[in-house]
């Protein structure tokens, strides 16, 4: 057992011996368990090559890859066992949907892993519920729209109940609502104990979501650590082909001009607003409604947001559409900052996470009261 789910030691990879510059060059990376991790880099930097080493798709030309402290065994049975714990969702869902109907495709993973039939059935139901596609169970995959295919690819990855979920550009091609839904789903996975790794070039996404980032450039690992430390070095950011996230940049500019210090570093719009307003006026409160078994609607105040699969199911069962049916936490925080109360229905097991997000505003000078 190790605190790291993946480690690489001097990992070098060339897809052919004639290749001049290796795709990965002496990469030493350590991915912590349970920590929201992002692998950042421009197109072609080697992000996918790296994570395909984690589940043994690629074998290093030199160096080692370790899973949970143990070096990878590349024989067929060992790889099969490894891949029962690691799921990858690629950017283009058509590349990983193989079956003719939704049900069959979601069952593909579990059946390959040798799960019993009742377990497979449960896995199908659970995954479809999580991605909110239950009524599409018997649909042919070809009839689905792009966003729906992305969700089914996701469900297929979740159905084997992996310990690790690797997502390649999860929000690419998705509209803002669907992007937020993906992040919400991912956060639920993290709270349930899955280690989630997102590979992306979207700096705003990585900055708002990740606790730790690893940055690749032309196959080399150029940074591992906290996002702020990376973005502080502007030249390095530009060399990697990336840009600085909006929230970081605005904070940097305003604080530099005012001659004040940069931290605490806001990562979301609500945090940056709090910092800018200097606790000027009173904040509204958020009424937090935990949704679990047998939960029901309560008396609401202000705008209503919904967060989490159980909460969404509750609303669907009552045939109701919430005012904020995506990105609900941030929207309710905005209501609070503007001095208005709001109500947030959220899954019981996500309550600590949500309370943490609300409490994070304290660092920026505004306190938002949470009532039950």
């Amino acid at each position, binding site marked *: 057992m190790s605190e790291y789910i993946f480690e690489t030691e001097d990992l070098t990879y060339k897809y052919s011996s004639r290749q001049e510059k290796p795709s990965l060059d002496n990469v030493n990376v350590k991915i912590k368990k349970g920590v929201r991790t992002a692998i950042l880099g421009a197109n072609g930097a080697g992000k996918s090559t790296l994570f395909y080493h984690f589940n043994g798709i690629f074998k290093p030309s030199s160096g080692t890859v370790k899973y949970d402290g143990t070096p990878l065994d590349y024989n067929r049975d060992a790889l099969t066992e490894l891949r029962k714990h*690691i799921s990858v969702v690629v950017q283009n869902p058509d590349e990983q949907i193989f079956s003719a109907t939704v049900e069959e495709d979601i*069952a593909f993973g579990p059946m390959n892993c040798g799960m019993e039939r009742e377990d497979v059935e449960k896995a199908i139901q659970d995954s479809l519920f999580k991605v909110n596609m239950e009524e599409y169970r018997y649909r042919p995959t070809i009839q689905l729209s792009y966003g729906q295919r992305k969700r089914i690819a996701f469900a297929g990855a979740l159905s084997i109940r992996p310990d690790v979920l690797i997502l390649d550009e999860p929000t690419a091609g998705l509209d803002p609502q669907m992007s937020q839904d993906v992040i919400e789903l991912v956060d639920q996975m993290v709270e349930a104990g899955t280690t989630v790794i997102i590979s992306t070039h979207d700096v705003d996404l990585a900055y708002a979501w990740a606790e730790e980032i690893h940055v690749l450039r032309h196959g080399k690992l150029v940074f591992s650590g906290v996002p702020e430390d990376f973005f502080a070095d502007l030249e390095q950011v530009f060399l990697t082909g990336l840009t600085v996230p909006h929230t970081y940049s605005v904070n940097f500019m305003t604080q530099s001009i005012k001659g004040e210090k940069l931290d605490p570093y806001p990562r979301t719009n609500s945090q940056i607003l709090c910092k800018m307003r200097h606790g000027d006026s009173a904040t509204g409160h958020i009424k937090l409604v935990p949704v679990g078994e047998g939960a029901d609607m309560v008396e609401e105040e202000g705008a209503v947001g919904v967060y989490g699969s159980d909460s969404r199911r509750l609303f669907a069962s009552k045939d109701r559409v919430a005012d904020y049916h995506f990105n609900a936490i941030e929207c309710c925080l905005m209501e609070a900052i503007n001095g208005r109360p709001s109500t947030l229905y959220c899954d019981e097991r996500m309550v600590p996470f949500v309370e943490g997000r609300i409490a994070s505003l304290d660092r920026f000078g505004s306190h938002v009261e949470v009532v039950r």
Partner: protein
Amino acid sequence: MSEESQMDTLAYSSRMLSWAPLGKLLLVIVVLIVNILTRSMVVPIITLIIGLGLMAYSTNFKIPLFIGLAILEGIIILVIGAGLISVTGSDSSPVIWETNILWFKIHMTVDSFNTAWNVFLRSIAGITVMISFATSTPIPHLSQALRQLHMPREVCELIVLIYRYGFLLLERMESMWNAAHCRMGFNGFTNKIKTAAAIAVGIFTSSSNLADKAQIALSCRNYQGIFPVYNAPPKVGIKWVCLVVIVAVVIYYIGINTLDVVNMAEIFFGKDVVG
């Protein structure tokens, strides 16, 4: 939506979807065979009614335009074909109509007229029965039916893969088609050919790229060499076998006993002509 995906949508929304595909297949084959076993014209009329009934039940009369047009086209061809048969009779039968149009000798006899009707009715009946099968059985189900007939697993999986990836390539083709239109790719005959060739190359390239990526994704999803089927459509049970046998026997029996009940020439032209 392309025609293939319309057909696919139709099949998946059919009321006959949950019938055992092998059962449907056997029924169709048996009915087609029995259709031509006897000379009786009552048999094709019966199978036509069965075919129409199944088609109606399967599609609930919601037939896409292109299928309707295809059926119409088929009917027109059959009418022309049957018409030719009807006017090229031999001398061994009473003549109904005889004339010369340009160099062509019209020689319609009782026999040729009846034969033409027979061919026409049998063909139409066959078409309706086959369409009822096609509109209620998506390719994956057909593949399952073949598997139950002990066709090699690899062939069945290949059928489903070609079907699934075929759709993706059709989608790409449609995009490229539109893109070509944006740049006047179909302006004139030579351009049409060149553009079609370019699209073919594009689809080929994209299919090989897709294959590469799919291989990686298969490994990621722990592909063990076979494509597992979670919910196979129902197998053929004793009920289906009995049904098929009964249908075959009944139709054959009717056929043998109604050999000369329906005489189309008599119906159209009266007893005197037939003699």
